[in-house]
């Protein structure tokens, strides 16, 4: 691997942090909803879309990011937000609906917004893609040297917003990288049942821009492809479309019976868990020993616990604060 060690370590640490965050959110999500699952109950009410297994798509871009780069993510946003460095305490607090959250409890887990780092996400499929185009327009007009990254799922690639965004970005040669997180299922519908061609990356040719397929759920592969695409955008050579084959280890939302995926599919997916695979590889290649990885886990787990403690110790907003922030 011709990658600086610091980048490999950073990606591993971030993957551990993401996975631990998702695990802890999952535990706390279910803790007060059982035995009878009630989606509105507990410390974290509402839908919860967790990204365990999709860490590589998020951490691979991380070493190439500059301050001020914009990211728009999806309804399953935690891994990308954490990888960009969104304040973990405020993010946890938002998920728990607290006054100290990113949006003071107005948005919740699908609507996380941060000014620095420059992050936003949305509960509507494909909604963030035109926003990334506009961010790139702003960066170009202002000459900031920044780029925009737009994350979306393979299900979103059949939305008009996908095609409109690619066309505009290509037409105006904007500094955007479009990243398709292909986890093979749009809730229950497999890609083969929704998409006329096997790989969305091939759709880039319709807009005359590079389309690159990353066939493995591997942070190193993502690192290399994203590095090239982000450099290209930053140079002023225009947008790229990247498709990464990834795995959603858990259901679409917590509480999803996940009966639409076969036992065999789920078994295979768990066997190729990217965090386990990356950890092994780092040991094999002498980058991080098992002991060093254990130390990283201890540190990252503590970081996640601190964020959750911060959230749980934070007050709820006053009910009438619901009226604030409709207008600036």
């Amino acid at each position, binding site marked *: 691997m011709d990658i600086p060690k610091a980048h490999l370590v950073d990606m591993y640490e971030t993957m551990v942090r993401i996975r631990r965050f998702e695990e802890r959110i999952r535990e706390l999500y279910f803790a007060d909803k059982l035995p009878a699952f009630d989606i509105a109950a507990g410390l974290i009410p509402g839908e919860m879309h967790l990204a365990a297994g999709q860490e590589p798509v998020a951490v691979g871009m991380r070493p190439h990011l500059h301050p001020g780069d*914009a990211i*728009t993510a999806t309804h399953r946003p935690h891994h990308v937000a954490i990888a960009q460095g969104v304040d973990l305490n405020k993010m946890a607090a938002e998920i728990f609906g607290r006054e100290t*959250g*990113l*949006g*003071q*409890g*107005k*948005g919740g887990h699908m*609507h996380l*917004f*941060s*000014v620095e780092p*420059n992050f*936003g996400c*949305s509960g*509507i499929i494909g*909604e963030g*893609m*035109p*926003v*990334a*185009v*506009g*961010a*790139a*327009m*702003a*960066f170009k*007009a*202002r000459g900031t040297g920044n780029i*925009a990254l737009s994350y979306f799922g393979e299900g979103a690639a059949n939305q*008009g*917003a996908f095609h*409109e*965004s690619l*066309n*505009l970005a290509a*037409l105006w040669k904007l500094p955007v990288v479009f990243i398709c997180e292909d986890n093979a299922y749009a809730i229950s519908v497999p890609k083969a049942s929704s998409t006329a061609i096997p790989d969305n990356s091939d759709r880039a040719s319709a807009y005359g821009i590079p389309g690159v397929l990353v066939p493995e759920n591997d942070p190193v592969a993502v690192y290399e492809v994203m590095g090239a695409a982000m450099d290209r955008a930053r140079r002023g050579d225009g947008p790229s479309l990247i498709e990464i084959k990834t795995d959603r280890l858990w259901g679409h939302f917590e509480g999803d019976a996940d009966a639409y995926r076969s036992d065999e599919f789920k078994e295979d997916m768990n066997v190729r868990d990217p965090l386990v695979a990356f950890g092994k590889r780092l040991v094999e290649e002498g980058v991080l020993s098992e002991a060093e990885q254990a130390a990283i886990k201890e540190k990252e787990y503590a970081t996640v616990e601190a964020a959750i403690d911060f959230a749980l110790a934070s007050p709820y907003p006053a009910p009438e604060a619901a009226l*604030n*922030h*409709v*207008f*600036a």
Partner: protein
Amino acid sequence: MTTMTDRKLTMQKAIAEGIAQEMAVDPSVFVMGEDVGVYGGIFGATEGLLDKYGPERVIDTPISETGFIGAAVGAAINGMRPIVELMFVDFFGVCMDQIYNNMAKIHYFSGGNIKVPAVLTTAVGGGYSDAGQHSQTLWGLFAHLPGLKVVVPSSAYDAKGLMISAIRDDNPVMYMFHKGALGLGWMVNNPHATGPVPEESYTVPIGKARVAREGTDVTIVTVGLSVHKALDAAALLEADGVSAEIIDLRSLVPLDREAIVASVQKTHRLLVVDEDYQSFGMSGEVITTAVQGAFDYLDAPPVRVATPDIPIPYSHPLETWTLPSVDRIVAAVTEMVSG
């Protein structure tokens, strides 16, 4: 306020002048939309801007409203002040997600941390047989959704001042101009569409109604082209000895409820003229405001002259019958004051 002027402009030219003056002083302001550049806007709202500011700041877009209105959101939260045009408001159906789920809600979701200073300009209104997909006003629909300011100018003076206020506003502003109020040479002739406009830059505050005509017997609350119809109706009513006061709301959001209540307390009667569909819209909101704020003052039940709850029909007699008209306003007021 600004100096008096003898210079007269159409509302269309006043809008374009307002945009041009803001572009001159604020490099973050840019314009994009379909046919806003070379053509100058189908309704002239961006006339002359391409020549002045070039294609980097006056951007002709593809027919791709989700794409470019969403892009306006992204630009607005990243340091720009986009003015983005939805050619006809009727076209909102192809891009509404970006307007009401995104543009209107990001500030709220972010707990006030992120601002979305975008102006969404759009042409509204009927009266020239353009049928049901190019003639609606729909301001009530947008006003219903939290997070959007909704501005509807009716005079050239207000159009310029409200445009400059909209551009400077840190919130998303829907700026809806009525095609029949713009003073376009190829539209129905409308003397009210031309008026004095100072050359210098000035603002008209968003959220303050204007008394377009003072009167004592009845209050007519309205907006957009219907202000002009109400003025014509008031002149006819005056000849019959009925004095009508006309409140031009100028914006639906914020709604100047105090102006409505104050006028009704003075005249004791209320007619709402609304070119939008009658039910669940502006007319009901204005009447509720008056009933809650001036119930004891009312001498008659409030009345409304609006577009009935039907699609706007094409054929001239059908459309003329459907939209609010001077005749319908005169008849409604006459019945109210004689009752």
